[in-house]
């Protein structure tokens, strides 16, 4: 009797032994993170190097960073299903999987980060509608649900599962209404990406991150959404490139990558204009009104010099934007890779300073700069999602038809 293979037909995968060794290595790293997670949950947050000056630290940065990087899912979905860029259907599955990993990681890190994890549901039950964090919790959870729905049809397309008539039809029907979920995802993402920017932007007691804005939304609300839409797809391109290198196969055609890179480039270029305008207004008006000169934020401490602003705005902002918006730049593979790496680093640096530098700057005049380095438990629990992501991607790539162009690009006969 002929059995249905578990691996999609017409594609080549590595041997079971090779796959098992790879998964074992990723699982070992994952278990290291799980052990650190266990320590944090059972012994408490004294396992971290956070303190009363650093209530937010590495984990909140990781949350903000992975959600920005996971922004590739909502923006690629928006371009594919709402704007009608059909070409991007060849990368949307992967963008959704990366988004799913990023968002589930963010939820896990948040669950470790709170002092009373068993009370995590209070944020929904006793919700304070004035808090940006409440909005983040609601939108993030809802959008994670949307991402799960977007991911499910791809899982049901596994040859074994697809043999089950119900799952086969469900996957087909879900595909046909995916635009509805994509639109919902865009709506939710706009708010939670923005609210994450609002988390630090509304802190009128913290001159480094406080921003004016429109009504209750500080400028950071819009800047965070914008930067996630710009840099999220860059992360999708980067992870696709890494996957291609590891599997030694071309998985997505160049024209698809080029289109996504071009749109990302223009989003990044316009974001940089807005971000630079915001920085100038903050430096010239907002901060001085609170008694701070621009250079107060970048001197008298061992870490945060003006270099970090140059790194964020110029090296990891203007440079990748210029590469990506020029045809010659993005068609050069090395430059394209450099640009997406810089853009990813840039958005991570932005999230870092908005969380960590905000808390490092002394506000009470007779206090000094507060410095922080994470404990191994914080590092391990932050690497945990990376190992988890590697495992999910490895399983998805092996067993699911993630890349529609793979067979065409890698004929087996």
């Amino acid at each position, binding site marked *: 009797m002929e059995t249905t293979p578990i691996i999609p037909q017409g594609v080549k995968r590595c041997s079971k032994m090779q796959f098992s060794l790879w998964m074992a290595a990723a699982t070992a790293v994952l278990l290291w993170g799980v052990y650190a997670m266990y320590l944090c949950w059972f012994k408490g947050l004294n396992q971290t190097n956070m303190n009363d000056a650093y209530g937010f630290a590495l984990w909140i940065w990781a949350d903000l960073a992975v959600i920005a990087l996971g922004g590739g899912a909502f923006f690629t979905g928006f371009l594919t299903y709402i704007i009608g860029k059909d070409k991007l259907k060849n990368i949307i599955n992967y963008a959704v999987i990366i988004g799913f990993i990023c968002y589930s990681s963010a939820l896990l890190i948040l669950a470790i980060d709170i*002092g009373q994890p068993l009370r995590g549901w209070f944020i929904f039950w006793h919700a304070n509608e004035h808090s940006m964090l409440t909005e983040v919790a609601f939108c993030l959870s809802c959008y994670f649900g949307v991402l799960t729905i977007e991911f499910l049809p791809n899982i049901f397309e596994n040859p074994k599962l697809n043999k089950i008539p119900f799952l086969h039809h469900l996957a087909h029907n879900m595909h046909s209404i995916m635009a509805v979920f994509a639109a919902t995802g865009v709506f939710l993402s706009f708010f939670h990406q923005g609210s994450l920017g609002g988390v630090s932007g509304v802190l009128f*007691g913290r001159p480094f991150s406080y921003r004016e804005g429109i009504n209750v939304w500080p400028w950071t609300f819009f800047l965070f959404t914008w930067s996630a839409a710009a840099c999220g797809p860059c992360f999708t391109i980067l992870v696709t490139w890494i996957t291609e290198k590891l599997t030694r196969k071309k998985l997505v055609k160049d024209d698809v990558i080029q289109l996504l890179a071009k749109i990302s480039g223009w989003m990044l270029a316009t974001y940089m204009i807005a971000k630079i305008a915001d920085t100038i207004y903050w430096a010239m008006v907002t901060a*001085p009104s609170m008694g701070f000169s621009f250079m107060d934020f970048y001197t008298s401490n061992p870490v945060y010099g003006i270099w970090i602003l140059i790194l964020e705005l110029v090296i990891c902002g203007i440079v990748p934007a210029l590469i990506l918006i020029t045809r010659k730049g993005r068609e050069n593979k090395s430059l394209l890779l450099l640009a997406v790496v810089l853009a990813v680093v840039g958005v991570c640096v932005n999230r870092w300073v908005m969380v960590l530098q905000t808390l490092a700057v002394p506000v009470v005049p007779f206090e000094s700069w507060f410095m922080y380095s994470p404990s191994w438990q914080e590092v391990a629990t932050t690497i945990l999602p990376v190992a988890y992501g590697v495992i999910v991607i490895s399983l998805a790539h092996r067993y699911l038809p993630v890349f529609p162009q793979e067979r065409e690009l890698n004929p087996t006969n």
Partner: protein
Amino acid sequence: MKEQHGYTSTKRYGMVIDLDKCTGCGACMVACYAENNVPFKKNETHKLDSLNWIRIFQLDNGKPYPDTEVCYLPMPCQHCDGIGKHGHSPCVSVCPAVATDYDYSTGVVSQIPTRCFGCRYCMAACPYHARKFNWWDPVWPADTEKYLNPDVSPRMRGVVEKCTFCFQRYQKARDKAYMEGRDEIHESEYQTACAEACPTSAIVFGDLNNPDHEVSKLKDSPRAFRLLERLHTNPKVYYLSSKSWVRRAGDNYLENESKPQSGRQKIHHK
């Protein structure tokens, strides 16, 4: 924040701390620990994870001997009124679970440890570092549990706590006044532990809105200033100092800005 529509400006409890009188003895801190069941660690050398609802800073004028001048500055929670009159203090507005609230009948910024789930957003929002996180389980040395104040619940690991202006004392005074058929609480009936313990009477506590209370007069002194007024946190803790360098140390100024002559010249949120 949800009660803002029913707001009537009755009481606005606050504190005036005379820095010219403060000797930095720490009696206020000890009294606070005892009154509010604040736990402590075996080793208190790492101050950034210590629990203390009032801290004392030592300031100096930065000049070499013999021109050196020193000032001690006790800093409890500033019980910020925030922008406007709707309790938009930095911490209250950000707490996602309403675990910290602004009490419109007293102006006290409260903390509800059993509601707090330990996200620490309030700590990131507070520029005064007045909020403390329970990084460790509270451990009381042998038999000291018997001396805990029965009016204050000890907090558990993983939640934020802070100065409440000894709110339990307000509740007791209010109950007593009610039983005696009075609407008003006398100034002496509700005093914080730190104010009572201060040997030089540097800490004065009362209703800033009540002209009969000493604090309402002291806050209008030419020596008065508040910490970080430029951030519009609108604190209810006032400081007094006859030294201009101390008053200047209370806020951030650009290099080319002139020195403030007195707190009266600054913005005052009523």
